């Protein structure tokens, strides 16, 4: 076992364990926090894999933004702080079966397919410089398209979360027509 592996394996264990807690914990806020751990561990793994820039973006966006957003969502939906009993739906056991099957399948396939493959790790492959060059040279067009997509998502999120706009003839009934209009606009974007 190489040094990298010695670092990588604990990170992986942490990531998987925290992910398991995300999907099993009885408290919603804890779930969000365990998610932070998972994502953080993933960032560590990226580092081990020499993808420094990705690792930092992971920390910034995921840990910084997404999880915060999720926490906001938890609060806005007035989710109970503390233990709640009914976070799992009725088909938990089926879900478990499917998940285990998926895991078994994926792991088997992966193991069979890459039994002898080794990753040559050389530092610098994922540096900010390399990334910047890649994004702004080779991948500049997808990058621009992505920015438009983000704009659309921005507008969509605004339209969706605001209740006072929409084509509904009766602004008083904010239910059916409002959501109908919103979803239509999202489709346009």
């Amino acid at each position: 076992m190489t040094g990298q592996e010695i670092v990588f394996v604990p990170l992986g264990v942490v990531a998987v364990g925290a992910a398991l807690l995300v999907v099993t914990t009885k408290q919603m806020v804890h779930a969000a926090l365990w998610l932070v751990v998972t994502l953080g561990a993933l960032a560590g793994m990226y580092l081990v894999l020499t993808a420094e820039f990705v690792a930092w973006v992971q920390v910034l966006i995921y840990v910084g933004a997404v999880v915060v957003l999720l926490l906001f969502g938890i609060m806005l939906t007035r989710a109970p702080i503390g233990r709640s009993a009914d976070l799992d739906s009725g088909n938990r056991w089926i879900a478990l079966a499917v998940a285990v099957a998926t895991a078994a399948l994926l792991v088997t396939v992966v193991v069979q397919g890459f039994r002898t493959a080794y990753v040559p790790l050389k530092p610098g492959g994922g540096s900010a410089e390399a990334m910047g060059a890649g994004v702004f040279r080779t991948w500049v067009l997808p990058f621009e398209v992505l920015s438009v997509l983000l704009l659309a998502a921005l507008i969509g999120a605004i339209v969706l979360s605001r209740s006072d706009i929409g084509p509904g003839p009766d602004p008083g009934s904010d239910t059916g027509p409002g959501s109908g209009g919103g979803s239509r606009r999202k489709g346009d974007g």
Partner: protein
Amino acid sequence: MHILYPLVVAALLFSIGVYGVLARRNAILVLMSVELMLNSVNLNLVTFDVWLRDRLHGGQVLTLFTIVIAAAEIGLGLAIVLLVFRNRESIDVDRLRALAESDAEPPADSVVERQGPAGQGDQVAVSSRRAPQ
């Protein structure tokens, strides 16, 4: 480094995400599970990028894009969740049954009759029926 380590971790994360999506009731938890799945994919992308020694760094760039899109997705997703919450007072995925047909057993020849209430908007009918629960 043996490539199996990251790949197995990614596979497990993905499966855990699957479990979360299928088993969790709260829409926000479902979103979190989706994030897990996305991340497992990201991990794969990065791993293969490194393994293949891609000079264009397609895997890593795509990972960046995915992260960005995931952020946008979570934003939109949460907006939708909030909208649903506002309308239904609940974000329990398994209680949002608007996709189902109305439970009333359709009588053989009542096509015309059934069109009456449906015209007023299915969601209203459903939500008003759901509200007391």
